């Protein structure tokens, strides 16, 4: 008999969400110029969490002006002083991490286990890491006295709202740039709480500006002629539009775009470990991860054993209240995203792939999608080619290492890949041949501020994280 888990909900009392929030411009919360607002909801319950000011082109202009004005002083500060501000921010994030984790879970729908144990520790770590660079830029390998670019326009997605903010803001501030950041319309809250952290840290006004809003605000930010650097994380389609838009300008750009990561399991892989890695690879954050291992490539001879084991493991995943500490899979971020996942999964079935999900009961309100496996998948199938951005795994097979490499590389993307084998030389040989920016061997979806992240081919331009992440914000 299986022992049932008792509910273990995280307390919401640690976070105090105001009924409404403004834009954060020049150190102050303010209404949108045209007075527009939008509601942000909890994807797990559809409960309205708060009403948030919606930035438009005029607000973008105001924020860029504030950032430009702040740039003169901020960039002239000794690196050691900038470092101290960033260290302060890192510490305050650590102090408030439980509050932020609960907030993020409410606004995004991801399990508290992930916000508490993955997102928040990484957010603080990014600020710590880049804080230490601020007074060491001469030693970063970009020549002596590298200069900041100016005002950075940053547009981030909803899958890791606070972590993506940290990836963008920490290196920008460390290098002496000022920022205007637009969080995604479905997850604006943690960025607004971050604005409050900037206040607590005593950060000079205008250095960080936060503009919740929709795609039009992002487009206005990218197009603004006084923005020197664009940092975008999101879809490949929008990334291409940005690349077109800034053609012929002096704007520097980093683009972190889509992926269709291959997770390759060889016949000598430790199967139990591989199964855990496959689960982490595609079901972490409900599969809403650009570097997700969404294509499982398994060597034919171990296919049956692996799939049996994987299905057994999926049957133990707990889906439901993201605030419950026992929850493995939370809610899909929005109704639109859920509809997109459904459409693509239905296409998989229609094209003849075999669909499987474990028995599981989904909550009646909110946006939910059961963990899903597709077998009998060919390389031509939609589920093997298109990024689904949800908990959907496509399984393909191979016979030889060369075939595995060819299939893994048969994609427009090139962000991530996984390799599972006990043989070290095979790991390195295969990793060498994969056209992907991050390769995880016998592990998956690991992140660290010191480790550069970014893609080949249509997965984007540039790297974030590590020493490499500084380059995007320096005049080199």
């Amino acid at each position, binding site marked *: 008999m299986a022992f049932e888990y008792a509910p273990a909900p995280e307390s919401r009392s640690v976070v105090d969400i105001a009924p409404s929030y403004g834009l954060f411009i020049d150190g102050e919360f303010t209404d949108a110029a045209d007075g527009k607002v939008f509601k942000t909801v909890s994807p797990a319950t559809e409960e309205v969490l708060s009403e948030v000011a919606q930035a438009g082109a005029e607000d973008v202009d105001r924020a860029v002006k504030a950032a430009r004005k702040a740039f003169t002083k901020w960039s002239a500060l000794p690196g050691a002083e900038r470092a101290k501000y960033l260290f302060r921010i890192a510490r305050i994030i650590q102090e408030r991490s439980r509050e932020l984790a609960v907030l993020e879970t409410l606004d995004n729908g991801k399990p508290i286990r992930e916000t508490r144990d993955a997102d928040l520790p990484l957010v603080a770590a990014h600020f710590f890491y880049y804080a230490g660079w601020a007074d060491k830029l001469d030693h970063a390998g970009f020549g002596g006295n590298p200069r900041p670019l100016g005002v950075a326009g940053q547009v981030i997605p909803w899958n890791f709202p606070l972590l993506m903010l940290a990836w963008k803001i920490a290196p920008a501030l460390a290098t002496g740039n000022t920022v205007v950041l637009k969080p995604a319309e479905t997850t604006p809250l943690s960025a607004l709480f971050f604005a409050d952290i900037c206040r607590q840290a005593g950060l000079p006004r205008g250095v960080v500006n936060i503009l919740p809003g929709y795609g039009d605000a992002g487009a206005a930010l990218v197009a603004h002629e006084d923005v020197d650097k664009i940092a975008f994380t999101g879809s490949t389609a929008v990334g291409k539009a940005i690349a077109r838009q800034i053609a012929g300008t002096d704007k520097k750009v980093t683009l972190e775009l889509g992926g269709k990561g291959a997770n390759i399991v060889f016949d000598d892989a430790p199967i139990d470990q591989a199964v855990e890695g496959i689960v982490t690879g595609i079901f972490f954050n409900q599969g809403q991860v650009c570097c997700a291992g969404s294509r499982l490539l398994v060597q034919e001879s171990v296919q049956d054993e692996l799939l049996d084991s994987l299905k057994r493991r999926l049957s133990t995943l707990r889906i439901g209240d993201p605030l419950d500490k026992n929850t493995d899979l939370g809610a899909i971020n929005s109704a639109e995203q859920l509809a997109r996942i459904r459409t693509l999964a239905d296409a998989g079935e229609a094209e003849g792939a075999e669909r499987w999900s474990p028995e599981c009961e989904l909550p009646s309100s909110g946006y939910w999608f059961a963990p899903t496996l597709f077998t009998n998948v060919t390389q031509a199938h939609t589920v093997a080619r298109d990024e689904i951005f949800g908990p959907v795994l496509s399984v393909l097979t191979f016979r030889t290492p060369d075939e595995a490499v060819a299939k893994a590389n048969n994609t427009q993307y090139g962000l991530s890949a996984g390799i599972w084998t006990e043989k070290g030389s095979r790991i390195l040989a295969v990793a060498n041949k994969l056209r992907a920016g991050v390769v995880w061997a016998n592990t998956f979806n690991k992140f660290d501020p010191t480790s550069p992240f970014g893609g080949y081919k249509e997965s984007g331009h540039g*790297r974030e994280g590590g020493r490499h992440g500084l380059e995007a914000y320096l005049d080199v």
Partner: protein
Amino acid sequence: MSESERLSVFKTYKLYVGGKFPRSESGRVYEVTDSKGRWLANAPKSSRKDARDAVSAARKAFGGWSGATAYNRGQVLYRVAEMLEGRREQFTAEVAASEGISKAKAAAVVAATVDRWVWYAGWTDKIGQVTGGANPVAGPFFNLSTPEPTGVVTVLAPQDSSFLGLVSVLAPVIATGNTAVVVASERSPLPALSLGEVLATSDVPGGVVNILSGGTAELAAPLAAHQDVNGIDLYGADETLAKELEIAAADNLKRVLRPSPVDFSADPGIGRLTAFLETKTVWHPTGSLGASGSGY
């Protein structure tokens, strides 16, 4: 018979594609003149088809060239410098004629070009150490970042510096393991086409460098839009053309190096080496010591 009575042998300039010297598929040529307007030669006027053939050749060569050891690539590039050294007089004459500078100045340009090639030859096995490295992640992982070539790169060679400029933009692309499709200076393509002959007689595998002459705008358009081209150096394009090409390049998110003025006689730095490199980061578990914390 004295030299003044002897009728000289003209040279038929041809493209360099896939290690071979084809005429343009289009059958077209255009007149190349010296700085005073005197006829020098007919250069092939490449077509879109020639450009596509060059991309195919570059793609085919990519696996072998990018997979070669850095030491090997350095040897091969140094061999090119050796071959160039032996042809200094020929290049001096071509550069003097096409750029309208004195023999002495052209000789200095050619010498600088040979030295530039040697400089880049030495970079093949150093750039990985300078731009890569081990990352101290907070966990039991060996985490290594290494630069890798981005793939097939289109190079629009400088219009005014037909030899030193050409080598300054081409050499870094192939030194890092990319393969190249070069659009030569439109007005002064002859040194570039002769460089093809040098490459063919050195050890550079066919297809690693492909050289096209003709209309820069005409050739650049299909190359910037080509789905199998991974990067483009827009140096040889004017502002308007560069913007159009950058827009076309966005279609498959090519790596774009925008044109900006360069003093080719100055230290080139490593900007052009890193422009067409990717960074690959590999995570590998290291295992961890037991609870005692001691491995001994």
